[in-house]
């Protein structure tokens, strides 16, 4: 096992990762920075592999990390050499690999694109590349030899007292940083908007929620809570338009997430067509208020409703849609429910798209009026954000009260075991319908906010990926937990907005994150305590089972 050859497998994995990053166009997008990214990948892999085999002699570890460095870097160099040769003789590679353009090769070899096309030798650049990547891997192996255990125990003694106040200090420091840095425009990824301030705010929200979880109950916690709430309320006043607009979007998804959390997290009904109710809310308000909608054009004397009338109407319609979907699928469980709800979500979108006379089909509902309060137009990002925050606060309160109520406990009982729940006197039909109805109501509510924010809505805004996004955010955040929804929405909706300039890689990273997260931390970032216990109990059981039953 502990021979130098055992470095071959990690080396091949490292090569696969670097080949992947190369083909999806890292060098084209980031220029020569890509080399350092590749180096970091090799460093990490070699470090992790060497740490696992820390007991073996240093010479062996260094040989292994040399293999881990050499194989991927030589492979990459060979590939780049071939590509450069093809590019020099005017063979177009981008018909097959869209990202392999001359600048791509140039970034890896330290030449300019013109030099690559002119056929200048790439060999010196490639020597350089191999040297950098291999030394990164060897460095990783070398650093793994340091005595980390001793270091850790030393640190633990010194910082014990500091550690308990650390969760409190981090959010406060972050907010202070946001106050001082946020107003001047620190630029991130070369964009005009103040994305750095927004990033600080995200981390502030995240760390505050974490702090609220770890600080013991008491005066300190109450004080911290007050400060955090005040800071949250103050933030929209200090933000610029872009920041508020992104936060508004995040808040709309928080409302949806809280609704879906009731259906999936509390009641355990897997709903993949949640976007249908979002669409019901947005379209009901849009069709009743947009001056170009069929209803306003064809009903004489009807001037359209205001935002405030739209809210209750959307709630009622969402409730009806929830029950309408709920009744036929009551008997289904698990994946069947998932697939039927998925179908339902698609049906709603397809109907909105194809019912041309009534909904205007793909051209959507246009010119939806913004809300106004006593004659003050609230149609700007800051006021819409405040509005969404108020709705989110109300929805959170309702969800928390529901969770602790009799209905909430029947939901949990039903999720755990339907048969036992029924035997305990829980009416499965009404309990399930209530879960669907509440979920649908919240989604419909957020749909109205969304319509008012977007002004124009189109059927394609209500595609399957919205449902998937909401589901993913409650799972990443920690299913069944409301703080988890906030964290999830920030991570999955808010962060990608900051990363717009590397748009192409967003979805790929999102997919990879979901897979990695499910394997490493399935309970989510801030799980509900009950869920966490369940998942870990499951693991113990499985380990025990695997030991008992060898699989071959």
């Amino acid at each position: 096992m502990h021979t130098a050859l055992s470095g071959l497998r990690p080396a091949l994995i490292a090569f696969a990762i670097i080949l992947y990053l190369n083909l999806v166009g890292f060098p084209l997008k980031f220029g020569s920075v890509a080399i350092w990214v590749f180096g970091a990948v090799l460093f990490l892999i070699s470090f992790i592999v060497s740490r696992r085999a820390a007991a073996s002699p240093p010479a062996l570890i260094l040989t292994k990390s040399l293999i881990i460095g050499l194989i991927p870097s030589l492979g990459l160099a060979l590939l780049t050499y071939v590509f450069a040769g093809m590019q020099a003789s005017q063979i177009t590679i981008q018909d097959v690999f869209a990202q392999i353009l001359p600048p791509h090769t140039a970034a890896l070899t330290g030449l300019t694109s013109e030099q690559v096309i002119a056929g200048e030798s790439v060999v010196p650049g490639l020597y350089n590349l191999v040297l950098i990547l291999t030394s990164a891997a060897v460095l990783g192996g070398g650093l793994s030899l340091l005595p980390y255990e001793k270091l850790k125990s030393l640190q633990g003694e010194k910082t014990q007292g500091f550690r308990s106040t650390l969760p409190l200090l981090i959010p406060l420091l972050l907010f202070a940083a946001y106050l001082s840095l946020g107003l001047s425009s620190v630029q991130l990824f070369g964009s005009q908007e103040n994305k750095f301030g927004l990033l600080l705010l995200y981390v502030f929200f995240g760390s505050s929620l974490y702090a609220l979880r770890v600080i013991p109950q008491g005066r300190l916690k109450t004080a911290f809570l007050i400060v955090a709430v005040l800071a949250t309320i103050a933030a929209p006043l200090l933000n610029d338009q872009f920041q508020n607009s992104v936060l508004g979007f995040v808040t709309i998804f928080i409302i949806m997430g809280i609704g879906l959390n009731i259906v999936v997290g509390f009641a355990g009904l897997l709903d993949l067509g949640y976007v249908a109710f979002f669409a019901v809310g947005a379209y009901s308000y849009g069709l009743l208020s947009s001056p170009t909608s069929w209803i306003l054009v064809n009903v004489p004397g009807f001037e359209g409703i205001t935002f405030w009338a739209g809210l209750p109407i959307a709630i009622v319609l969402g409730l009806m849609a929830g029950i309408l979907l709920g009744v036929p699928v009551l008997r289904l469980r698990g994946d069947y429910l998932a697939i039927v709800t998925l179908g339902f979500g698609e049906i709603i979108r397809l109907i909105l798209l194809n019912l041309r006379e009534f909904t205007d089909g793909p051209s959507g509902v246009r010119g939806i009026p913004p809300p106004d309060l006593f004659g003050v137009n609230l149609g700007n990002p800051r006021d819409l954000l405040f509005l969404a925050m108020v709705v989110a606060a109300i929805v959170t309160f309702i969800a928390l009260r529901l969770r602790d109520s009799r209905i909430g406990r029947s939901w949990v009982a039903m999720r755990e075991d339907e048969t036992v729940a029924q035997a305990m006197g829980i009416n499965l039909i009404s309990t399930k319908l209530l879960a669907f109805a509440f979920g649908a109501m919240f989604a419909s509510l957020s749909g109205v906010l969304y319509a008012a924010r977007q002004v124009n809505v189109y059927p394609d805004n209500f595609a399957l990926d919205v449902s998937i996004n909401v589901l993913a955010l409650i799972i990443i955040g920690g299913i069944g937990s409301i703080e988890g929804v906030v964290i999830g929405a920030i991570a999955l909706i808010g962060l990608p907005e900051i990363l717009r300039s590397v748009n192409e890689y967003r979805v790929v990273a999102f997919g990879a994150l979901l897979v990695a997260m499910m394997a490493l931390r399935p309970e989510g970032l801030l799980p509900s305590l009950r869920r966490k216990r369940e998942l870990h109990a499951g693991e113990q059981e499985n380990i025990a089972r695997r030991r008992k039953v060898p699989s071959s």
Partner: protein
Amino acid sequence: MASFNPTKKAWLINLGPSTYRLVGLAILVAALAWRVNDVLSHEAYTAQYWILQLINGLILGGLYALVAMGYTMVYGILLMINFAHGEVMMIGGFAGYFALTGFEALGWTTGNPLQSGLSVVVAVLAGMLASLIIGIALERIAYRPVRNAPRLVPLISAVGASFFLQYTVLLIFGVTPHYYEKPAIINSGLSVGDSGIFISYTGLFIFFSSILLMIMLYLIVQRSKMGRAMRSVAESKEVSALMGVNVDKVIVFTFALGSVLAGAAGVMLGLHNTVMKFNSGFFPGIKAFTAAVIGGIGNLPGALLGAFSLGTLEALGPSALGLPTEYKDVIAFSVLILVLVFRPTGILGEVLSEGKA
């Protein structure tokens, strides 16, 4: 919460389960029959039109069937929806495209029948191989680590893998659609007499090769040693393990089998629609899953039946109901919901939706 007394409000849904559902079904069938009759007496569709639509439906059904096999086998064994199966198919389609482009550069696609026939076969094989690799990697990376976790976890992992594969293909091969060049041998079609009925050779190829592949699959599952192991693992992983079945190996084999069929389907889809894009696999994938559910998931003949019914309904349904063809997806999903409401087990399925699932 007195109002949620089970005895009071139960009439909403639960009044003698079978009779009321039957009455509902009868009303629905009557309404649909009336509508179809109405449309048929007013619209001037010729018999030729219907036959053409039926042929289209059968071709589509053949494609769905190939993909549905993968869903249904994986579901039967792991009880999870392999959400990324449609993407596995799409990658097969891309591999087939590149193989065909290679043969085009050699001039084989327009060459003599032997050469162009060979290029079709090799393209399908290339698609199968690419899908096989992706399918096995998918199982190893995305599904094996979460195999014993609660139900939601593998599903989310699958959704993540699906996004990852789609956008990886987008990044590596670009946004522009890749257009298939049909090899000469399947480029024309067959006219039946002078009735105006025309069947493209592509359609014939798809239909018969999907039937052939499914017969092979059936033989593998029913007759081979590995097939027996698969069926036993589907019954119970633990007991199979005790009987000396290597469960991991069987699961990998299942994924491999499903992926190979999906790869073939991907190339055929490319030949049929003449275009492949990074998201070409998603909707056919969901439709194929629908077909598997309609037939009764976990049941191979059921998936076949479901796929052909879905394909035919999609092709004939919109015209028969007097709706524009854009409603074919609405019809497909409505059929799914109706089947699950009135017969939750699917047409041929075992009782899964309430028991095992």
